[in-house]
């Protein structure tokens, strides 16, 4: 079975995000970028499926400027077999990404598509769901455990009340949650192997996808600064403050 994984290049999770001075977005110039952590979990899961003999080929897809090739290369160094770079300078919103992935799925015919449950830059949590709808495939989102069968997959999902286990028939769309696995680090031999793995470059127009944004961003602001807390001396003080000031009891 072929597995397709989507990998997004985002501002590294260690970077302190700064809003651009003109409030049009966040600063990405000279900022460390890396693979969306949830996508890393996706790649790891695919590689584990391949190691277990359940997947035959892993295709990593990224979209955006040329630099996204680095993100694909990271996926290849973790164990993906080849990459597809959808080259564009356009701002890509979840719907556009889902449409591009739909076209690629039509072409590649994977048995499973793995995405992160969200990207840590825009936190949209939409692409996987939209893709499933466009493909008319079942979806298993927020996966914390995957047991892949021949024609279906049992997926444990993290939901508000606890864990839910569902079965989806294949092909299906899966989105990863934090606890699905712990991604490996690329080893030097695998980095060297990745250099020789192929990456195809296509663009949205050649795939026949209109990526024009459907939403417009009005303004981006820093969150309000948190006020310092107060220390209380006794439990009685605390209870009094909760009653009179916070008014929660």
């Amino acid at each position: 079975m072929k597995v397709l994984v989507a990998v997004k290049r985002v501002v590294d999770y260690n970077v302190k995000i700064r809003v651009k001075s003109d409030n049009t977005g966040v600063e990405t110039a000279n900022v460390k970028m890396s693979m969306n952590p949830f996508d890393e979990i996706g790649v790891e899961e695919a590689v584990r499926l391949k190691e277990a003999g359940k997947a035959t080929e892993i295709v990593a897809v990224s979209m955006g400027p040329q630099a996204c090739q680095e993100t694909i290369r990271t996926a290849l160094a973790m164990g993906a077999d080849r990459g597809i770079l959808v080259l564009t300078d356009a701002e890509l919103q979840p719907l556009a990404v889902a449409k591009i992935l739909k076209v690629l799925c039509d072409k590649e015919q994977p048995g499973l598509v793995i995405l992160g449950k969200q990207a840590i830059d825009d936190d949209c949590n939409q692409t996987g769901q939209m893709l499933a709808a466009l493909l008319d495939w079942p979806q298993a989102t927020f996966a914390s455990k995957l047991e892949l069968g021949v024609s279906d997959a049992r997926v444990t999902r993290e939901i508000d009340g606890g864990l839910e286990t569902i079965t989806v028939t294949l092909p299906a769309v899966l989105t990863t949650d934090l606890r699905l696995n712990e991604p490996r680090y690329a080893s030097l031999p695998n980095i060297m192997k990745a250099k020789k793995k192929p990456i195809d470059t296509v663009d949205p127009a050649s795939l026949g996808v209109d990526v024009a944004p459907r939403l417009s961003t009005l303004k981006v602001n820093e969150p309000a600064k948190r006020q310092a807390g107060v220390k209380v001396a006794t439990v009685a003080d605390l209870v009094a403050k909760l009653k009179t000031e916070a008014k929660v009891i």
Partner: protein
Amino acid sequence: MDFTFNETQEQIRESVARICADFGDDYWLERDREGGFPDDFAKAIAQAGWLGVALPEAYGGAGLGVTEAAILVQTIAQSGAGFSGASAVHINIFGLNPVAVHGTEAQKKAWLPPMIAGKERACFGVTEPNAGLDTSRIQTRAQRQGDRYIVNGQKIWTSTAQSAQKILLLARTAPVETTPNPLNGLSLFYTDLDRKRVTVKEIEKMGRKAVDSNMVFIDNLEVPVEHRIGEEGKGFRYILEGFNPERILIAAEAIGLGRAALRRAATYAKERVVFGRPIGQNQAIQHPLAACWAELEAANLMAFKAAALYDAGQPCGAEANAAKYLAAEAGYKACETAVMVHGGMGYAKEYHVERYFREILIARLAPVSRELILSFLAEKVLDLPKSY
């Protein structure tokens, strides 16, 4: 001129940084307190294949250059592992270069794979108590007897000899009197550190407690002829070829540690409030930190320029030596400034910068001193009379 790192080089930095992230400040603080080789760290680096970065692909290495090796060791030092981390793997990364370049097929097959896999650790026995920086005066003798050499003598500062199975050993095979140029009487061996014939005594030192440095007493050590690298009498030349990459790696490590110190200092300067304002709001605190940044980055340019020259097969002696000098000085200044910016807390172990300060001195002292580098530059670049 292109000052950017390529995709593979970026990936190396990223992947090594991740391994290092598993060995945090507390790990190195404890190694510094208790001593004891950082085995689990060295193992993690070896398991991911990093020790082979600059060794040939045919023997399990990656066949990359000193540029990539420098990125590797710099990332280790910069993670906060400092010289405790970098020195734990340092010799295994470029030390066996003489074997890779001058070794026989059989030697390479026998020695390189176990080193790359981290199964064997080597130490580097060059410095001697009675010769110092004047390597031409080393006294350890290797006398040929049939199919073996009998070695007697003493080495000093030999790092990692407590746990190493192998030693890369420079010894005299022809007496000083018989060779017009005393450097021609030296030969290089890679052999087992047979503890029945070799006594290793740890030197108590200022920093980097985790990675031992030693006095090594060699008493009738038998070394088979097959353990000699290349030709008899050319040992110093083989070692010399490795000096430039060695300087580049040390420079990269010193810059890495300097950056770690600077990062801590800047963070502390932002958080520490005295006289109603963060201390980092005072220019007396800001300016030295900014100067440290500028000096570290300038040294870094020199280090990677030297690396690029070396990898392109061009002469890089002046650049490699200048890089080591600049990096050690910039690193030292950054570590010292970091201690001062922390005030009294800079003197407390739990703020880590005092450990960096003790470790960075290694880069100023070894493997060659500032004075000798400057003498070398004066002679080779400025064409002044040789002074040493």
